[in-house]
């Protein structure tokens, strides 16, 4: 609770910086529009203005500053424009409309969740295999670690095209990319977690004559929960990035990635920013939800 005030101050400072940055970013566009509308602009011709630095333009035309926060297609939209667009496209439209961010968000979210479920499921299975079998540990684990240093996302366009050519489309290709991105963090985190019981605890189970399966269910899996949740949080953020990037190369018509792409084609900056913030809110909500589940589970287990 102590950090509420500092966080608010930092956020306010960032928003203030954003408003300040919007002035020099947009001033040229505003002055061009003002000139076309017949208003008084210093210097008067566009060619002359191109010679000047943005700061001199701001100082010479102080009257243009409010207009830089209210342009139709600004280079950098002001925070309230993005907030208005977000509100307009979530609450203002019916959720089945093609222009509703809720609709696009759901398209991305469903692929994210499906991929996340597949990725974490397979990841946990592989981690159990690695911990139980020495051969798998020695042969697979180094590759799992190396694969974390590879920009796996480069595979995204290919996965989509390959799956398309065998007749799979829609949600599945995006989910495959999501699964792929969340898979390795979960494997590495889970292996660490399943190995976290110390020698004393393992010895105790041995004195009980516990089988390997009993050791897994009664000691290793419960002990791995904190590690599991830490890697789940990384995994879901990676899944969301995967689903968004998966929408880029196909020219998808729905989803947050498609909104980003369409916005960048048509110069709709406000639309790009609102899609970006929708993605950020989604990511924050997913990570926050996992954090809540983590707290409940760990408290129920008496760990935290």
């Amino acid at each position, binding site marked *: 609770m*102590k*950090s509420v*005030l*500092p*966080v*608010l*101050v*930092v*956020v306010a400072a*960032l928003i203030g910086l954003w408003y300040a940055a919007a002035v020099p970013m947009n001033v040229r566009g505003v002055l061009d529009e003002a000139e076309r509308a017949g208003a008084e602009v210093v210097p008067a011709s566009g060619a002359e203005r191109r010679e000047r630095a943005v700061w001199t333009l701001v100082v010479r035309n102080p009257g243009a500053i409010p207009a830089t926060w209210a342009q139709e297609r600004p*280079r950098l939209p002001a925070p309230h424009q993005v907030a208005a667009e977000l509100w307009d496209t979530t609450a203002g439209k019916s959720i089945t409309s093609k222009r509703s961010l809720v609709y696009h968000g759901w398209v991305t979210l469903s692929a994210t969740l499906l991929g996340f479920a597949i990725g974490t499921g397979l990841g946990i299975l592989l981690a159990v295999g690695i911990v139980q079998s*020495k*051969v798998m*540990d*020695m*042969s*697979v*684990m*180094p*590759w799992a670690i*190396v694969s*974390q*240093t*590879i*920009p796996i*996302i*480069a*595979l995204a*366009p*290919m996965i*989509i*095209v*390959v799956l398309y*050519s*065998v007749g799979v489309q829609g949600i599945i290709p995006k989910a495959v990319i999501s699964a792929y991105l969340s898979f390795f963090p979960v494997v590495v985190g889970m292996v660490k977690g399943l190995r976290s019981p110390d020698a004393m605890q393992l010895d105790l189970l041995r004195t009980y004559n516990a089988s390997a399966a009993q050791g897994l269910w009664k000691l290793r899996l419960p002990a791995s929960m904190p590690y599991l949740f830490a890697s789940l*949080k990384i995994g879901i*953020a990676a899944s*969301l*990035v995967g689903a*968004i*990037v998966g929408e*880029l*190369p196909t020219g998808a018509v729905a989803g*947050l990635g498609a909104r*980003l*792409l369409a*916005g*960048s084609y048509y*110069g709709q*900056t406000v639309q*790009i*920013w609102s*899609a*970006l913030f929708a*993605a*950020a809110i989604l*990511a*924050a909500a997913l*990570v926050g939800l996992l954090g809540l589940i983590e707290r409940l589970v760990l408290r129920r287990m008496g760990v935290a």
Partner: protein
Amino acid sequence: MMLVALALVLWGLGWWLNLRIAEGPHAQSRAARLAVPLIFGAVVLAVWELLVRGLQVPLVILPAPSLIAARVAGSLPILWADFLQTFVKGALTGYVIGCTAAILTAVLVDRSDFLRRGVLPVGNFVAALPIVGTAPILVMWFGFDWQSKAAVVVAMVFFPVLVNTVAGLRETTAMQRDLMRTYAASYWQEFFKLRLPAAMPFIFNGLKIATTLALVGAIVAEFFGSPTLGMGFRISASVGQLSLDMVWAEIVVAALAGTVFYGLVALVEKAVTFWHPSQRG
């Protein structure tokens, strides 16, 4: 069918060999630790090759490793130009700028307790967001060439490095700081001799995370527009022409670049934080 059967036999053989080594008396030796993953990797490649040939998988779905290797060998100039554009100009420039800015910001933030308590949660929050999404905006601002890619990389690596550095600079104990004070150390003496070295494991953790992010940022930013070269451009263009061997060749280059980049940062870490328990094991 012969080739498929051969693939299965080879798989069994490789597994048996690894089983023998892993369960054998020399399982902990360095050679065994190196040999087992290498055998596994080689078997996977061989099985891939045999299955693709045996089942006559079309090129559009999965090219054989030999075909990919031939493509890599055959188009080295293109791959090298793409590598320079995306990795050296885009990713590396952005990485250096972003990490330097993040570490300097962290040092500034660290001077005020109020700022630190505000920046840490905000930074942690932003580090979890899909920052790749800023790519279309930055491409619009900085043009199609490598500058916009470097800008995306800066945005991506900044927050993970910032958060790790700020956390690392808090790592000293009160006892250590008191000792420095009894020596009458100035702020900067304490900083360079105690707090910065103590923060190094954390900083390098951030730097290592940032290596992968840098490559991802540079490649994905090219999907939003680029000059007619670069790894991301080549991948999306080749996917469009269905020449998947070229895509795989770029992925091989990206994987190598990512691994070597990470390895180099890890090497520097080893030299700088030689005193840390995790490096002495």
